[in-house]
């Protein structure tokens, strides 16, 4: 009841308008995957739902190797996320729970955060040259290595925040009972911060799934991921293929939307560097 000045019916109309503004373009885009190019380029049928068809989807699966690119995306995302977490969990545990010089702790913790500001374009050029020399260019493992390194810092920083919320008394008690640091991590910290772990995992997953710039430089048709394929398939011919645009976009965004709705509360925290704890 803080802002009673806005009456409630106009308010809900405004909220409704905002929802239309934010969601209708996505729906419009998804529907375009069910129209063939003739319908899309007919100015009379811009919003009509009359000639919807599954044909474009069938063609995409049959002719465009889209399942292959989907496989690449899933492989890159799942492998990278798993390895990111297996490096970030111990690092975050060390930085949040173990004894160390306070100044070192602050510096290292800040370093991990600062990596988030590093522009990808500054790293991609030397990586491209080195990869070309050692034969990792245009391979999936090469791309995965970059994804791992670029996602460890933020994952570590966020996990640190979650681990700090586990009361120190519990760790103290465990240590007195003779619990080693590795047991403390696996038996106490990980089980007690399970929701946090899940949210950081999903956030990392989304970041990697959505990534385009590294993938566009470091892959070729033998190992493209979905965003790169989407970019290629839309502009293949002289006209922009809006049907393929709809299909490739749908495949990319539907999993993310499902994750986002399920993990809403934790995602906000992750996207704001842990500033929003609610």
């Amino acid at each position, binding site marked *: 009841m*803080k802002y009673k000045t806005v009456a409630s019916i106009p308010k809900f109309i405004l909220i409704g308008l*905002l929802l239309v503004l*934010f969601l*209708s373009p996505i729906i419009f885009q998804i529907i375009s995957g069910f129209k063939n190019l003739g319908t899309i380029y007919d100015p009379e049928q811009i919003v009509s739902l009359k000639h919807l068809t599954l044909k474009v989807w069938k063609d995409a699966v049959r002719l465009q190797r889209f399942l292959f690119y989907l496989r690449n995306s899933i492989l890159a995302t799942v492998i990278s996320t798993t390895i990111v977490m297996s490096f970030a969990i111990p690092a975050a545990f060390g930085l949040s729970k173990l004894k160390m010089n306070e100044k070192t702790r602050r510096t290292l913790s800040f370093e991990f955060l600062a990596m988030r500001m590093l522009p990808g374009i500054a790293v991609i050029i030397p990586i491209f040259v080195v990869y070309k020399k050692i034969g990792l260019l245009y391979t999936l493992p090469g791309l995965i290595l*970059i994804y791992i390194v670029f996602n460890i810092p933020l994952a570590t920083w966020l996990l640190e925040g979650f681990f700090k919320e586990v009361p120190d008394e519990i760790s103290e008690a465990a240590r007195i009972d003779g619990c080693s640091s590795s047991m403390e991590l696996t038996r106490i910290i990980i089980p007690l911060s399970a929701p946090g772990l899940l949210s950081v995992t999903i956030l990392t997953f989304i970041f990697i799934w959505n990534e385009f710039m590294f993938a566009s430089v470091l892959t070729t048709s033998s190992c493209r991921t979905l965003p790169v394929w989407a970019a290629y398939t839309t502009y293949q011919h002289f006209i922009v293929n809006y049907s393929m*645009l709809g299909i490739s976009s749908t495949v990319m965004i539907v999993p993310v939307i499902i994750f986002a*709705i399920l993990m809403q509360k934790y995602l906000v925290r992750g996207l704001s560097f842990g500033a929003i704890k609610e």
Partner: protein
Amino acid sequence: MKLRHNYEYTVWKWYVFPALFLVLLVGIGPLFYSLFISTHQYNLAKVQIPYKFVGLKNYAFLFTDPHVWNAFKLTVIFSTASVSLELIFGTFMALLLIDVVRGRNVFRSLFLIPMVITPIAVGLMGRYIFDDAVGIVNWVFRLFDLPRIIWYGNTKSALITMIILDVWEWSSFVFLIVLAGLMGIPNEYYEAAKVEGAGFFAVLFRITLPTLRNVYLLAMLIRIIDTFKEFDKVYIMTKGGPDFATDLITIRNYTIAFKEFNIGLGSAFSIIILIVMILLGTFLIRVVQRAD
């Protein structure tokens, strides 16, 4: 006892060093190599141009290249306009939804969608909805008898289209963190203001916004950095065109390095961008820290 104490202070290294090592080796290490390449003439596309040391010539060239200055100018405009509009829009949305208790989580989930979906999909969406012939934006314009606009195919409106799309994508980010901030303001503040007879705008400008100062600074920090790094949406929509109208720094750098394959020049440009980002980031973090 002393020994045991010292041992305890080294355990953390076993946990932190693997991650730190990997990040320094593959994340930071290449930057030094880039610094090295940037002092060389190095072109992968033209074999007739030999690989050789040229000192600071690449940097000198960039400072006199009008396209580079244009790219910085466009990036500053893009960043300033997008971030300001996102702050205004996000605040408006948060004020609108703060009282809505029932269904708040549903609304939050729905508003979260634009910022988590693949940026490439957002760019492709922009390409489709702003299409001058078959896009839904011009269709709506026609309903209201407004003129047909060639959104991204026109040097005058291309950058504006990018700004609109960025505001569409990221206003919800400001909305979500301002909403969380608003919910953290104690109710007594508002009750006191009510007793004093303060109106809506007095409450907004005297209580709400000053209390949320840090929330806003954080939102600005994250958004300014990210708009300077913007690449995906603009690349997929216009690749910097038409006629360099949307040629942001990242796009310019990408074009130099991976379209012209001028690796030496591209490295030099990326080092300049890196320095700008470090200065900008340090400055913004100082501002945030001073506020704390």
